[in-house]
C-alpha cells in the first residue's frame, strides 16, 4: 500500500473575489500527490478552522488578496489552538507586504509566500514540513 498522502486545505478568507491563484496552487499540490480540500471563496476563519479539524489536514494554506491578512490569518491559528488542533500547520500567501511577514510569523503563521514564490517551492516546503 502506498504511503499516506499529505492532506492540505486551501482556503480563501476575506472578501476578495479572485481564486485563480489558489486554484493553481491546489492543482500543483494535487499533481504532487497530495489530497487537497478546496472550499471556495469568502470563507470566515471559523469556517476554515472547523473544516481543517473535520478534514484532519496536515496543512492549511490561506490565500488573501484583500489586505485583511493581519487580522484573518492569526485568527485561524487561534481558533485551531482553541479546538486542540494546534498540530495543523498554517501557511499564508497573497499580496503581503514584507513588513507584515514577521508579524504573521510571530502569531503562528509558519511561512508566508508572496506572488514571486514558485509552485515548486511551495510543494517542497509542504513536503519537508509535514515529514519532519
Amino acid at each position: 500500500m502506498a504511503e499516506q498522502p499529505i492532506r492540505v486545505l486551501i482556503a480563501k478568507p476575506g472578501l476578495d473575489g479572485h481564486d485563480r491563484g489558489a486554484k493553481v496552487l491546489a492543482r500543483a499540490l494535487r499533481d504532487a500527490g497530495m489530497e487537497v480540500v478546496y472550499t471556495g471563496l469568502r470563507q470566515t476563519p471559523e469556517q476554515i478552522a472547523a473544516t481543517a479539524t473535520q478534514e484532519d489536514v496536515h496543512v492549511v494554506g490561506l490565500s488573501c488578496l484583500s489586505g485583511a491578512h493581519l487580522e484573518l490569518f492569526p485568527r485561524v491559528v487561534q481558533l485551531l489552538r482553541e479546538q486542540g488542533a494546534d498540530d495543523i500547520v498554517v501557511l499564508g500567501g497573497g499580496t503581503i507586504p514584507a513588513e507584515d511577514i514577521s508579524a504573521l510569523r510571530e502569531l503562528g503563521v509558519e511561512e508566508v509566500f508572496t506572488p514571486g514564490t514558485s509552485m515548486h517551492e511551495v510543494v517542497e516546503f509542504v513536503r519537508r514540513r509535514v515529514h519532519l
Partner: protein
Amino acid sequence: MSLAEGVLRGDVRATAKLISLIENQPEAAVADLQELHPHTGNAHVVGITGSPGVGKSTLVDGLAKRWRKEERRVGIIAVDPNSPFSGGALLGDRVRMQDLATDPGVFIRSMGARGRLGGLARATHNVIRVLDSGGKDVILVETVGVGQSEVDIVQTADTVVVGLVPGMGDDIQTIKAGILETADVFAINKADRPNARGLEMELRTLFGWNQEEEEDRWIPPIEMTVATTGAGMDELKEAICDHWDHLKRTGELQHRRRERYEAELQSVVEDYWRKRFFDYWQREGHWERVVEQVLRKETDPFTAAQQLVVPFLDSEVGG
C-alpha cells in the same frame, strides 16, 4: 482516552483522527471499530450518486439543511476519484456546502480514492460506522457513479438516490450499468433546464412504471429538483424518508443489513487468513522456493497449494 470513546462523546477531533486512521492504517483502527460496533445501526445512510456535475453536492447541501431544521444530526462523506497519475486528488465538494461548515450538528469529510479499489468501499463503510456511532441520524454519502468501486460504495447505503440532469442526452447510457438499477429514488436535477419531462418519460419506460402496483413493492419515485433554488427539495427529502419507512416496515432493512454484514464478515475473514498464511510461509524464503519449484516443474500449483495449506492449518499459527 481511546479515539472510540471520543467518538461516542461526540468529540470532533477524535472523530476526524479515527477516520484518518481508517484511511491510513486500517489494521490500527480495528480496536476502536470493535468498540464502536455495538453503538451503530441508528443512522439512515443515504447514497447520492450520478455523473460528474449533475449537482450531487448541491443536493447534499440542501438535504442536510432540511434535516438540520428538524434537529437531526447529519454526517456527510464526499468521495472523489483521484487523479490517476499522481495519486493526489482535488476534493472540491465542500464548495457547495459552505454554510454547513460551522454547524456543530454536521460533520463533513472528503475522501480521495487513493487507488485502493475494493478497499475504498470498505474504508467508506468504516467511516459510516464512526459517524453512526457518534450519533449522526442521517449520513449522506456522495460519490460519482462511474466505476465499480462507486457501485460498491453506493451499495453500502440504505437508500440510493441517483441524480440525473435533462439535456445530457446520453446520460442514461454513460452512467455505470448497475447504478440505475440500484436507485431507490431518482432526482432529475437542474429541472429549470428544458426537457426535464422528456427525461422523466424515458426513465418511466425504462423501469416499467406502468406495471400494476403491488402492495409493499417499492417503485422508485422520480423527483424534479432545482438544487440551487431549493425547488422540489422538500419533496426529494420526503421521498427519501418514505423509502426509509418502507425499509423498516417491510423488514427489508434487516434483510439488506444482514447481507451487508455477511459480505463484510466474509472479506474480513479472507483478509485475516490470507495475511496469516503468507506471514507463515514467507518466513525464511520458503514461499520463494516453492514458486521456484513450480517454475522448474518439480511440482505444480495444485499440489503445492495443498502442501502449503494442510501443514499451515495443522500449525500453531493456523490451528
